[in-house]
């Protein structure tokens, strides 16, 4: 039996190595210079942003300058003062809970809808226009209304999170479920595969990369929905949104900035968490996953 033809690329790579490199001062240490190019620019932008922040503080008149507290004051008053920190972390936990539960509901509901739409064109035709309409509706403007109708409890916050995060998830999942190739479907047809077999052995695994793409967007939107929704609820357990609103009205700007920063980190954490699960779930076979964060 002849061995598989795998020497092709290796031979090419070897011959390329012997080609003399063009003379250039920069290309001497390829790997480490690449790393430097990856780290230095964002660090520079970060320093520039902090400097502009400080510059803005000193540039403003005295009564306006309190709205832009200095970075170290934000750290000292917002994060290092234990009473304030406890106050903020309580809010963070309430917002995080709403985001997590809402995201879980989005995944279950979104998958159910996407699968239903992938099974019959008429279901897709029946539902997709309304999914689009829902996405273009300014959900956050409806938050006070939702509060009046359903209440200002946890459940309303979860509803807002779902309303705002479910569409990008459905959209990506549906795209993924329909992405399997015709020949792959033919293969299953030849062996009389049932709808369920087709779904579990072909459509769902083929959809996983797109599902995770949708999940990344949905996770970030869930945090936005939890925090901003809370901002507009103005009643019930105080999440980060209400704390931001409260501290702004009481001129507690250092604490407010700390809350905004934490909300941002919550979003980043959600994004990274999805990426982590994604790499574990499909990183072995989906190469694009390995390249990204």
């Amino acid at each position, binding site marked *: 039996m002849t061995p598989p033809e795998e020497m092709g*690329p290796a031979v090419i790579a070897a011959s390329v190595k012997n080609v003399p490199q063009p003379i250039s001062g920069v290309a001497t240490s390829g790997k480490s210079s690449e790393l430097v190019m990856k780290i230095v620019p964002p660090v520079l932008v970060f320093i520039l942003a902090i400097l502009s922040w400080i510059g803005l503080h000193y540039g403003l008149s005295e009564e306006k300058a309190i709205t832009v507290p200095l970075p170290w004051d934000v750290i000292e008053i917002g994060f290092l003062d234990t009473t304030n920190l406890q106050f903020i972390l309580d809010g963070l936990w309430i917002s995080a809970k709403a985001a997590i539960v809402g995201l879980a509901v989005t995944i279950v509901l979104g998958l159910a809808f996407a699968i239903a739409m992938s099974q019959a064109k008429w279901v897709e035709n029946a539902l997709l226009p309304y999914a689009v309409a829902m996405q273009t509706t300014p959900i956050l403007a409806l938050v006070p209304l939702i509060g009046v109708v359903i209440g200002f409890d946890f459940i309303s916050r979860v509803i807002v999170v779902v309303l705002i995060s479910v569409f990008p998830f459905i959209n990506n999942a549906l795209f993924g479920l329909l992405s399997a190739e015709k020949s*792959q479907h033919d293969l299953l047809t*030849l062996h009389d595969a049932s709808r369920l077999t087709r779904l579990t052995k072909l459509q769902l695994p083929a959809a996983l990369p797109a599902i995770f793409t949708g999940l990344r967007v949905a996770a970030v939107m869930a945090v936005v929905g939890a925090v901003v929704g809370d901002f507009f609820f103005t009643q019930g357990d105080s999440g980060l949104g209400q704390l931001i609103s409260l501290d702004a009205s009481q001129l507690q700007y250092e604490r407010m900035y700390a809350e905004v920063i934490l909300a941002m980190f919550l979003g980043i954490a959600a994004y990274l968490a999805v990426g982590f699960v994604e790499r574990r779930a499909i990183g072995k*076979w*989906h190469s694009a996953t390995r390249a990204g964060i």
Partner: protein
Amino acid sequence: MTAPTTSRVQVKTAGQGMTFDHISMHFPDGTHAVDDVSFSIGPGEFVSVVGPSGCGKSTLLKMASGLLPATGGELTVDRGHLGYVFQDATLMPWRTVQQNVELLGELEGIPKKERKAAAKQAIELVGLGGFEDKYPGSLSGGMKMRCSLARVLTLKPGTFLFDEPFGALDEISRERLNDEVLDLFDKQQFAGLFITHSIQEAVFLSTRVLVMSARPGRIIGDYPIPFDYPRNPELRFSPEFAELCGRISESLREAHA
């Protein structure tokens, strides 16, 4: 207006091989793809079909496999023992080589132990031993095709349908895979229907080569290939081989006219 022919299409089951009896294919959009094609393939017969692009060669396979029901004529084939080798490897990228090769066994409800053993044997047979745990993304085009071949072999089909399986491969990989298909054919004496663009490939593999005309596809040339099996790669350089290829090539040129 070309109304689809109303003659009844029968699919009988008849063990190994297949018979096309006055088969035609009219697509709903009015395209007349295949016209009055008749031939049969028995065990130990390997028939290749060459023809211009779009002449309905692949439609023959789709009709034989049932993916596309013929609109006229009578087709006899045992669908229970068909092996279909696709144009691309059609592997599932989320499955390892081993899992891909086991797929058809899973679909057919073969017990786990049996299908694992069949997969292992097939993987060895196509020379992919040691690559069981690799994912398709890390395999070369030729290795993917081997994996696809191994997958079909697990069901031990008596009839093979090949849909231009090696068309996208480089010359060396293609010739190697041709050698392996020949080897399998020599050992298993299946009935084979092979669609290809390459006259050399068709002559090298087959017991018989059919030439199809441009659409609507008809059989316009029928060449028995007299070379004995097992065939050596050196056969490709013999004058008899070149002469036969030349004659088929001429007939193919007429098909384009």
